[in-house]
C-alpha cells in the first residue's frame, strides 16, 4: 500500500478489514463506479482504497446521493423568497407561515424497492420521508403519495398496486399522520417499474428549527433507534441502476419497516430538539450510517471518527462494510455535547429506545472508521462528499416524440363515439375514476385538524390555535410531459396550483420528485432538462420557490424508460380555514360558472384521445402562466369574500369530467345532484369542436357554483381580475340528470348512473381482494 500524500495534503492510511476482498477491477465495477470515478478515488486517497472505502465511495457517489447527473440543472430552480427559511440541501425545505409557525415539507421516491417488494418498499418509503421532516424539528401533520402503475388488467400490476397502498397505509396510519392527498395514474410504461413517491408536511415553531450540521470538535455521535442488520445494503446504488435480471440477483436484503419504532423515534426526536439537548440530528436513510455521518460532517466542515464495532447490531459478526452501508430503518444519528449524553439517553430510554455512543467529531476533516481499534477507512471528508465527478450528458429529443406531436388520432368525425359514451369511458378509466378504494385505506382524520379530506382537489388542515390552514396536493400529468416536456413541466406546476387555489388557498412553495429514465440516454436527459426548465419558469411566474425535492433516474424496465414523471408537491396557505371551498356542488338552484376559455386544438395529450380513442399524441396545450395566475388570484379573492359555494379545477378529462365530478359529489354523499349546463356559452366555444369543448384540456379552467344573489358581485370581481367567466347553467335537485349540452349535441345521464360508474371503477377491478404475485 502506497503512502504518498493525498491531494488534500493529509496522508491517509487504512488497513483492510481481516477477510475483506482485495479491490480488483471487477470489484470496482460491481460497485457501479466507472474508470473516471475510480481514478478520482485513487487521486483523493493517494493509494488503493480498502473494500470498506470503496463501498463508502460507491454509496456516496451513487446518483441517489451525489446528484452527479442533475445538480447543474437543479441549480436553475428559483429557491429564494420572503418565506424561505430553509431552501434545498437539508432534509426538508422550510417556509415561514405566521405567528412564529413554519412548515417543513419534502417528497421522496421509493420506486425500485417497491418494484421488488411493494408492501415493505412503500412502507419504508413513507417512513423515510417522515424522518426527513421530523429531523428538522417539525411534527408531521400530513402525508401525500403519488403512484404510477401499469394497467390493472395485469395481475402483477394489481398485486403491486394493492401492496403499495397497504404499505403506505399501514405505516402512516400507525405513526398517526393523516394522508390528505395524492394521485394514482395507470399507463403501460409503468409495468415493471411502478413509481411510489411519498410526501410529508410538518409544522414547527421557527425557533425549534434544527439543521443537520455536525460541529463542536469532541462532540459525541450517538446511534439512536433500531439495531443495524444486513437490510438494504447498497440500496443507494441499487436505486441508481436499471431494473434487470442482474439487479434481481444482487437485490439487497429487503428493508422491513417498523412504524411503531418510528413513532417512538418521532416523539423522542421532537423532545430532544425542543429541549435543546442536541447539536444536530440526521436520519440514517439511503447509504445509512455512511451518508448521514459524512454529510453531517461535511456540512459542518469537521471530521468524524466512527467505531463500527460499537454500533448495536441485529446479527452476529457484521463487517464494518456491512455496518456502514446497511439501510436498516428507524435509525438516527445524533450529535451531542459530551456533558449532555446521559440526559439524551434518559429521554431515549423513556421512549424505549437505545442511544449508543459510536463516534466523535474531529478537527482533521477526515472521515475515519475504526473497527476494534484498527482504521479500516480514512477519507478526506469534504472531498468524499463534494468531489464526485459531475456529468453533463448529451440532450437530444427523440424523433419518435416529434412525430407523435404532429400525429392525428385514427378516427374522426362520424367515426367518433357519442359524447355520453365518451364520458362513461372516461369516468370508468382507473386513472380518472374515484380513488376512494385507495384513500379509504389511509387515515385522513387523525390529529383532528383535517379541514378537507381526500376526494376533492387539494387536502387541507387547520393549524391548531391559529385561524390559518395549509392546503396540500401532488400532481403530474406524465402524458403531457411525454409529448412536450417543457409545457408538461409547466402544466404540472399549474395543475397543482389550481388544486390549491380551488380550495381558496394561495400557493407558497413546491417540492419535486423528478422520476425519469436513464440520464445516459440523450432523449431522456432532454426530457429531464426541458421538464425542469418548465417547472422553473412556472414557479417564477407564480412567485413561489422550489424548497427541495428528489431525483429518481434509471426508471427503466425491459419495456424501456418510463414517461417523464416530475411529481410536484405543493403547499398553500389559507388565512382563515373558515373561508375554505369544497369542490362539489351543494345547493339546488345555485348558478354554475365556467372560469377560463375553450380552445381549439386542446385535445393533444388529452385523456379523451388516450382513454376513448386509444391514441397518445398531439401537441399538448401551451400553458398560459398569466391566465393561470389570474385564475389563482380570483379564486382566492372570491373565497375570502365568501362569494362561492364550490370550486373545482378542470384538468384531466376537461370540462365535462369536471362538471360530472362536481355533480356526483363525494363518495359519502347520499346522492349526487343534477345539473343543466350549456357549454356553448363558454368563452371562445364557437371556435371549438364538440370534443374540444367537452373534453379539451385547456388549462387555466375551473368550475364554480354560487348563490344566484352573489352572481353579479362575483362576475364583477372576475372582470377586475381579467378572468373569463361564463354563467353556463344551474344545479338542480338531488338524483336528477347531469345534462351538458351545446346546441343540438348534449350529454344527458342520471347522476346516479355516473356515481355507479365512477366510484366502482377501481373496486370492480380489485375485487379479487388478494392478488397473486404474478
Amino acid at each position, binding site marked *: 500500500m502506497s503512502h504518498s500524500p493525498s491531494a488534500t495534503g493529509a496522508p491517509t492510511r487504512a488497513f483492510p478489514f481481516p477477510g475483506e476482498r482485495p479491490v480488483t477491477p471487477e470489484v470496482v465495477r460491481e460497485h457501479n463506479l466507472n474508470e473516471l470515478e475510480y481514478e478520482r478515488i485513487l487521486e483523493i486517497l493517494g493509494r488503493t482504497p480498502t473494500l470498506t472505502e470503496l463501498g463508502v465511495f460507491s454509496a456516496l457517489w451513487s446518483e441517489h446521493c451525489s446528484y452527479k447527473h442533475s445538480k447543474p440543472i437543479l441549480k436553475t430552480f428559483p429557491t429564494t423568497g420572503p418565506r424561505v427559511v430553509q431552501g434545498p440541501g437539508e432534509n426538508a425545505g422550510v417556509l415561514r407561515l405566521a405567528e412564529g409557525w413554519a412548515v417543513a415539507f419534502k417528497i421522496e421516491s421509493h420506486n425500485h424497492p417497491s418494484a421488488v417488494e411493494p408492501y415493505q418498499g412503500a412502507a419504508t418509503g413513507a417512513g423515510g420521508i417522515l424522518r426527513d421532516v421530523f429531523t428538522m424539528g417539525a411534527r408531521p401533520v400530513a402525508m401525500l403519495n403519488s403512484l404510477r402503475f401499469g394497467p390493472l388488467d395485469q395481475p402483477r400490476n394489481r398485486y403491486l398496486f394493492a401492496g403499495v397502498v*397497504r404499505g403506505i*397505509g*399501514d405505516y402512516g*396510519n*400507525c*405513526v*398517526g399522520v393523516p394522508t390528505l392527498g395524492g394521485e394514482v395514474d395507470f399507463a403501460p410504461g409503468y409495468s415493471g417499474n411502478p413509481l411510489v413517491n411519498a410526501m410529508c408536511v410538518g409544522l414547527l415553531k421557527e425557533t425549534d428549527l434544527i439543521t443537520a450540521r455536525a460541529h463542536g470538535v469532541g462532540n459525541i455521535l450517538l446511534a439512536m433507534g433500531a439495531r443495524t442488520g444486513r437490510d438494504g445494503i447498497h440500496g443507494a446504488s441499487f436505486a441508481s441502476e436499471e431494473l434487470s435480471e442482474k439487479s434481481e440477483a444482487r437485490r439487497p436484503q429487503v428493508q422491513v419497516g*417498523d*412504524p*411503531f419504532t418510528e*413513532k*417512538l423515534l418521532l416523539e423522542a426526536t421532537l423532545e430532544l430538539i425542543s429541549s435543546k439537548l442536541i447539536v444536530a440530528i440526521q436520519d440514517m436513510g439511503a447509504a445509512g450510517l455512511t451518508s448521514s455521518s459524512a454529510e453531517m460532517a461535511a456540512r459542518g466542515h469537521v471530521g468524524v471518527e466512527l467505531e463500527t464495532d460499537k454500533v448495536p447490531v441485529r446479527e452476529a459478526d457484521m463487517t464494518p462494510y456491512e455496518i456502514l452501508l446497511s439501510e436498516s430503518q428507524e435509525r438516527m444519528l445524533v450529535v451531542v455535547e459530551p456533558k449532555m449524553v446521559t440526559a439524551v439517553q434518559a429521554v431515549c430510554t423513556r*421512549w*424505549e429506545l437505545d442511544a449508543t455512543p459510536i463516534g466523535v467529531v474531529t478537527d482533521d476533516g477526515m472521515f475515519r472508521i475504526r473497527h476494534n481499534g484498527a482504521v479500516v477507512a480514512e477519507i478526506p471528508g469534504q472531498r468524499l462528499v463534494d468531489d464526485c465527478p459531475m456529468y453533463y450528458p448529451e440532450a437530444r429529443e427523440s424523433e419518435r416524440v416529434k412525430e407523435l406531436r404532429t400525429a392525428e388520432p385514427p378516427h374522426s368525425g362520424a367515426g367518433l363515439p357519442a359524447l355520453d359514451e365518451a364520458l362513461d369511458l372516461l369516468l370508468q378509466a382507473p386513472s380518472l375514476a374515484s380513488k376512494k378504494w385507495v*384513500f*379509504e*385505506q*389511509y*387515515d*385522513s*382524520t*387523525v*390529529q*383532528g*385538524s*383535517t*379541514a378537507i379530506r381526500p376526494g376533492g382537489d387539494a387536502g387541507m388542515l*387547520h393549524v*391548531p390555535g391559529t*385561524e390559518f390552514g395549509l392546503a396540500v396536493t401532488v400532481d403530474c400529468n406524465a402524458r403531457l410531459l411525454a409529448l412536450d416536456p417543457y409545457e408538461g413541466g409547466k402544466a404540472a406546476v399549474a395543475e397543482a396550483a389550481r388544486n390549491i387555489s380551488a380550495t381558496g388557498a394561495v400557493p407558497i412553495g413546491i417540492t419535486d420528485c423528478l422520476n425519469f429514465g436513464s440520464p445516459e440516454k440523450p432523449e431522456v436527459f432532454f426530457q429531464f432538462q426541458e421538464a425542469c426548465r418548465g417547472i422553473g419558469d412556472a414557479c417564477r411566474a407564480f412567485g413561489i420557490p422550489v424548497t427541495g425535492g428528489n431525483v429518481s433516474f434509471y426508471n427503466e424496465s425491459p419495456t424501456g424508460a418510463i414517461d417523464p414523471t416530475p411529481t410536484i408537491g405543493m403547499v398553500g396557505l389559507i388565512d382563515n*380555514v*373558515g373561508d375554505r371551498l369544497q369542490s362539489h356542488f351543494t345547493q339546488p338552484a345555485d348558478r354554475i360558472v365556467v372560469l377560463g376559455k375553450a380552445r381549439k386544438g386542446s385535445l393533444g395529450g388529452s385523456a379523451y384521445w388516450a382513454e376513448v380513442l386509444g391514441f397518445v399524441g398531439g401537441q399538448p396545450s401551451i400553458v398560459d402562466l398569466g391566465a393561470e395566475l389570474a385564475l389563482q388570484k380570483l379564486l382566492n379573492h372570491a373565497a375570502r369574500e365568501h362569494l362561492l359555494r364550490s370550486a373545482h379545477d378542470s384538468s384531466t378529462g376537461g370540462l365535462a369530467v369536471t362538471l360530472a365530478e362536481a355533480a356526483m359529489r363525494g*363518495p*359519502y354523499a*347520499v346522492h349526487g345532484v343534477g345539473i343543466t349546463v350549456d357549454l356553448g356559452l363558454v368563452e371562445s366555444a364557437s371556435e371549438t369542436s364538440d370534443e374540444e369543448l367537452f373534453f379539451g384540456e385547456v388549462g387555466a379552467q375551473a368550475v364554480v357554483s354560487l348563490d344566484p344573489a352573489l352572481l353579479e358581485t362575483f362576475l364583477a370581481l372576475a372582470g377586475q381580475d381579467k378572468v373569463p367567466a361564463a354563467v353556463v347553467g344551474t344545479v338542480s335537485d338531488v338524483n336528477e340528470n347531469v345534462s351538458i349540452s351545446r346546441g343540438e349535441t348534449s350529454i344527458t345521464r342520471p347522476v346516479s348512473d355516473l356515481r355507479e360508474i365512477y366510484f366502482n371503477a377501481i373496486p370492480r377491478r380489485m375485487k379479487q*381482494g388478494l392478488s397473486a404475485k404474478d
Partner: protein
Amino acid sequence: MQRVAVVRFPGSNCDFDALCSAERAGSESYFVWHRDTDLKNPDVVILPGGFSYGDYLRSGAIARFSPIMDAVQRFAAEGGPLLGICNGFQILCEAHLLPGALMRNARLTYVSRPVNLKVERTDTPFTCAYQGNQVITLPVAHGEGRYVVDEKTLTELEATGRIVVRYVAPDGGPAGAEDNPNGSINAIAGICNAEGNVVGLMPHPDRMTDPALGLTEGLGFFQCRVGTTGSL
C-alpha cells in the same frame, strides 16, 4: 372544573386529540404515562386511540399489561367514568373491562371514512349531551374494529341496553352493508359495562371537536360533568 386524565401508551397517536377535545369542552386535562402507577385523582379517564405497541399480536393485547392499567382497573371498579376510543376500546376489551373482542375488519382492509351513528344510550357519562336516538356522523379509522361477542352476552347487551352507539343508515334506519364499516355484529359501534361508567367505541368523537372548522359533532362525548346524567 373537572380533571381528565389521558393515558399515553407507546404508540398512542390520538392522545393529543383526546387531550385538547377535553379542554375544548372546558376540562382540565393532562397526560398519564403508561409506566406510571398513579392516575393523579382524575374525575374522568380516557384511553386514546392509536397503535399501542404497534398493535402487534392483537390490538391492545400488550398495552393491557402496562403498569398504569391496575390503577385504571381500580378507577373503573369504583365507578369512575372511563372512556376508550378506538385503540382504547380494544384495550378495554383485552383487559376484560368490556365484553367481546375487536377483530380484523370483514373487508380485511383498513377503513377510514365517516360513519352515521345512532346514540342509543344517553345516560352514560359520555353521551349525556346527546338526545336519545340522535344520529351523528363521526369518522372511523381502523383495521380491527369488527366487534364480536358470544351469543349469550350479545343477547344480554341488547336486552339491557348496553349498546351505546350503533352504525346506522344516513336516515337513521338499520345499517346496510355500506353503513357498517367493519362487519360488527348487530352493527355495534360502542358499548358500556353493566354499571354504565365504562364506555368504549370505535368511531372518533375526538376528531370532531374543532370549532374553527365548524365540525363539533363529537364534542358531546367530553361535555358531561361527573354526577350528571340525562342531557345537560
